[in-house]
């Protein structure tokens, strides 16, 4: 029915806009804190692209949600003095793969991690 369809559209549009605002705020925070730290080695690419890996039923499957969020991000980045682009990219099997990557990062240091965990 039309009323429900309109309500659904309004709440999801608000959600996408707030989520984009949140990501954008964190992106600006990254720029500011990287500059404060004096780091100049962050970019692994020449285009100042920042990728946001995403996961979750709403952002993946709700009709039009991802596109709307991306559009808000594009608009916000255009207002920013910081260079670059924010791109939402889907991360599949992220829970399992992410845990595996984390373990690989600490791979040779597990005994130290275990001691630290017990003593923390």
């Amino acid at each position, binding site marked *: 029915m039309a*009323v*429900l369809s309109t*309500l*659904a*559209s309004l*709440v*999801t549009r*608000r*959600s*996408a806009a*707030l*989520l984009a605002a*949140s*990501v954008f705020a*964190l*992106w600006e*925070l*990254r720029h500011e*804190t990287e500059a*404060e*730290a004096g*780091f100049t080695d962050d970019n*692994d*690419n020449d285009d100042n*692209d*920042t*990728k*946001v*890996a*995403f*996961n*979750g*039923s*709403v*952002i993946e499957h*709700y*009709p*039009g949600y991802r596109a709307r969020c991306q559009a808000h991000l594009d608009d916000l980045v255009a207002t920013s003095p910081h260079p670059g682009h924010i791109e*939402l*990219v889907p*991360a599949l*099997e*992220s*829970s399992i*793969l*992410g*845990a595996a*990557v*984390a*373990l690989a*990062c*600490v*791979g040779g240091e*597990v005994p130290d*991690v*275990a001691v*630290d*965990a*017990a003593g*923390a």
Partner: protein
Amino acid sequence: MGKGFLATRGLLGQDLGAVVEAACARAGLAVTLGALVNDGSATLLSQAYGHAATRFGLILGTGTNAAVLLPVSALAAAKFDGRPPAWRAAARRVIVNTELGMFGQRGLPRTRWDDRLRARHPRPDFQPLEHLLAGFYLGEVCRLALVEAAEAGVVFGGFLPPSLETPYSLDTETLSKIAA
């Protein structure tokens, strides 16, 4: 904690890695826990592994969260008190679990249906942003507006369908089917 689980009982202040290892040991499982990551961090790591420009992990399903890679200097030194000196000497950046859903105490515009949702919520101020944008709550905000509209005689001929009487009975999956 935000989804109504009671899993934190007896665990606050403890190291989760040690808790998990102890539980495995009691069950006779020889397990060493090398890493423990949440969904936002796992999403960031899984994508960063293959795509160098990845700096964020973003979750939006039932709940919402974000993980971000920030310089260590962006955080108060006390945040790293539990870490070994070797880590603190070598670390330049760190993955931060933002708990994004907990932001938004002030400054975000709310409708009266948001206020009604919070009035009935067991922890109304715990995750303000989550209540405004996460999947668990999108349907409920719509339902609260429909309840008011039915009471005002604007929809359903003034009678609220029984299926909409229960809080959280309208879920986001239903909204997505309407939107398709």
